[in-house]
C-alpha cells in the first residue's frame, strides 16, 4: 500500500495537525475522564466502593452480565446474517419488490420508538416470547436492520463486477462467491455493522425495560439505571459514573481490536490479490 507523497512544509503542518487533533481528542474524552475520576472518589478519598456496590446490586452483576452477553451475541449474529444476505440481495440482484422491501426496511427508522413498543410487547406475548432474551434480541435485530442493510447494500454495490465474475468463473454459485470472495471485499462494512449492532444491543435500555418483566432477565443498562435511582428520585452520580466506565470498557477493547479493519486500501488489496 502506497502513501501519498509527502510535501514540503510537512513539519509545521504535522504539528498543526497534532495540536488540533490532540485538542479535539481531549474534548471528546473529557466527559469520560470526568466519569472515571468521579467514580473512584468518595468522601473518604479514593476507593472502588461504587464499583463493588454495583457488583452486588440485587441479582448480582453475574446475572446481568450474562443476560447482556446473551442478548448482545444473539443481536450481533442475527444482524450480521440477515443484513449480509440482505445487502447482497439489494446490492447485486434485481428482483421484484426490491425497492419496496428496502423502503420497508428503512421505514423502521421512521417510526417513533415508544409507539411501536406497545404493539411489539403484545406481539411477543402472542409468540410466546414475552420476558425472553430471544424475543428482545429479535426486536433489536429489527431495529438494526435499516442501518445494517443500507450499509451492506452500499458496500456490495461498490464491489466491481470483475470480482464477482472472477469468483463465479470457478463454477461456484452465488453463495460460494459470497462466502469465498465477496465477503472479504465488504469486510470494513461487516465490521462496522457488527460493531454498531454490538453497541446498540449492549447499551439498549428502553426496549429491554419494556420487554422484560422480571429482574433476573434484566440486562446491565436496565439494572444500572434502576440502581442509579434508588436514592429516592435523585440520581446517584458516582454509581452512574461507575456504570458508565464499566460498560464502556468492553466497547473500548472491542474497538481497539477492530481498528485493523479500518485501513485504507483494503479494497485495492482485494483486487490485486
Amino acid at each position, binding site marked *: 500500500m502506497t502513501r501519498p507523497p509527502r510535501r514540503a512544509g510537512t513539519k509545521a503542518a504535522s504539528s498543526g495537525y497534532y495540536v488540533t487533533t490532540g485538542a479535539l481528542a481531549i474534548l471528546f474524552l473529557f466527559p469520560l475522564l470526568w466519569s472515571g475520576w468521579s467514580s473512584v472518589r468518595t468522601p473518604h478519598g479514593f476507593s472502588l466502593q461504587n464499583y463493588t456496590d454495583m457488583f452486588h446490586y440485587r441479582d448480582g452483576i453475574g446475572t446481568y452480565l450474562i443476560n447482556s452477553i446473551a442478548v448482545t451475541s444473539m443481536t450481533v449474529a442475527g444482524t450480521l446474517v440477515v443484513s449480509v444476505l440482505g445487502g447482497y440481495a439489494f446490492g447485486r440482484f434485481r428482483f421484484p419488490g426490491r425497492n419496496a422491501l428496502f423502503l420497508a426496511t428503512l421505514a423502521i427508522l421512521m417510526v417513533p420508538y415508544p*409507539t411501536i413498543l406497545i404493539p411489539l410487547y403484545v406481539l411477543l406475548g402472542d409468540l410466546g416470547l414475552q420476558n425472553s432474551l430471544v424475543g428482545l434480541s429479535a426486536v433489536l435485530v429489527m431495529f438494526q436492520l435499516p442501518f445494517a442493510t443500507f450499509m451492506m447494500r452500499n458496500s456490495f454495490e461498490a464491489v466491481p463486477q470483475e470480482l464477482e465474475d472472477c469468483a463465479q468463473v470457478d463454477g461456484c454459485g452465488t453463495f460460494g462467491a459470497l462466502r469465498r470472495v465477496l465477503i472479504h471485499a465488504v469486510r470494513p462494512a461487516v465490521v462496522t455493522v457488527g460493531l454498531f449492532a454490538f453497541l446498540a444491543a449492549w447499551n439498549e435500555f428502553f426496549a429491554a425495560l419494556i420487554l422484560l418483566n422480571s429482574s433476573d432477565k434484566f440486562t446491565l443498562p436496565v439494572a444500572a439505571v434502576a440502581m442509579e435511582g434508588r436514592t429516592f428520585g435523585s440520581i446517584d452520580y458516582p454509581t*452512574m459514573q461507575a456504570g458508565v466506565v464499566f460498560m464502556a470498557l468492553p466497547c473500548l477493547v472491542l474497538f481497539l481490536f477492530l481498528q485493523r479493519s479500518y485501513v485504507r486500501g483494503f479494497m485495492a488489496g482485494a483486487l490485486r490479490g
Partner: protein
Amino acid sequence: MSLSTLKEPSAVEDARPRRPLLTIRRRRAAQGLGYAAPTAAVVSVFFLAPLVLVVWMSLNHWPLLGNPTLSFPTNYTDIGDNTLFRGAVWFTLRYTVVMTVVLFSVAFGLALLVQNRRRGVGFLRTAFFLPAAVGFATASLLFLGLLSNEIGPVNPLLTHLGIISRPVSWISGSPNTALGSTVALVTWRFAGFNMLILLTGLQAIPVELYEAARMDGANRVQILRRITVPLMRPTIALVLIMMITGSLLAFDQFYILTGGGPDNSTTSVVMVIVREAFVRFNLGSAAAISVAVLGVLVALNVVQLSILRRRSR
C-alpha cells in the same frame, strides 16, 4: 440449468441469446429473493405486523385496559388542536437543520483527519469514537451532571480559564443555551459514530485517484469536491438519512437533559407522542400522531433517496 424446464412453450423454439438472458435474469431474481428472504421475514413479523396494529390503534379510542371503540378521524383531527404539538413541530424542524449541519460537518471533518495511517491515528479514532460506547440515555444524564452548576466541572473550569465570569445556566437559562447544550451532547455522542461510517466510504476510494489528481495539480478543495464527495455519495446518503430521521425523532436528549424546556421551547415531536401515550394514557391519539409522522418521514426519505441516488448513477 434448473430453470430451462420451466420456460413458457412459446419461447421454447428460440435458441438465440434472448433465452439464456431470460434464464439468468430469472435465476438471479429467484436467488435475490432468497437472499432477501430473512430480511423480509424479520421486517414483516417484527415491524409490519406491529405497524398494522399501530395504524389500527390510531383509528380507535383505545383505553389502557378496556375495549377499544372505533373513533375515526377524531385522533387525527385532534392533532390540529394540539398547541404543544404545533410548537414541537416547528422546534423539531429547526433543531433538525441545526443538528444535521453541525453533526455532519464535525463527523466529516473528523473522518478526513483520521483517514490516513499516521502515528497516533489509532488513538485519535478511539478517542473520537469512545463516546458511542455510552448508552444514549446515560450519555444525556452524564451531560446533565457535567453541565450542572452544583456537581459539574464545566462551569468551574470555564470560570477558572476566564472564559465566563459567572456560572452559566446551560440547561434552562434560555432556549438558545438549552438548544446549544443538546447540540453539544448529540455531537459528542454521535460524531465518532458517523465518522466511522464515513471512514469506510472514504477508504474505499482508491489512492491512485488522489495521486493522479495531485499530479494534475489539483488542490485539496478540488480533490474534495471532484473526487471524494462524488464517490462517497452512497455513504453520505446513508449518514444524512440517519441524521435527519434521527433528529426528527429525537427524544432522549430533550427528555433527560432539558425536559423540553425552558417553557417547552425544546419540546420535540416524540416528546408529545410519549406524553399522549404514557402521561395522558391516550394511546389512540399517540398512535395517530406517530402514523402522521411516519407518513411525513417516508415521503421525505423517498425524496431524499431519489435525489441522492439519481446523481450517483
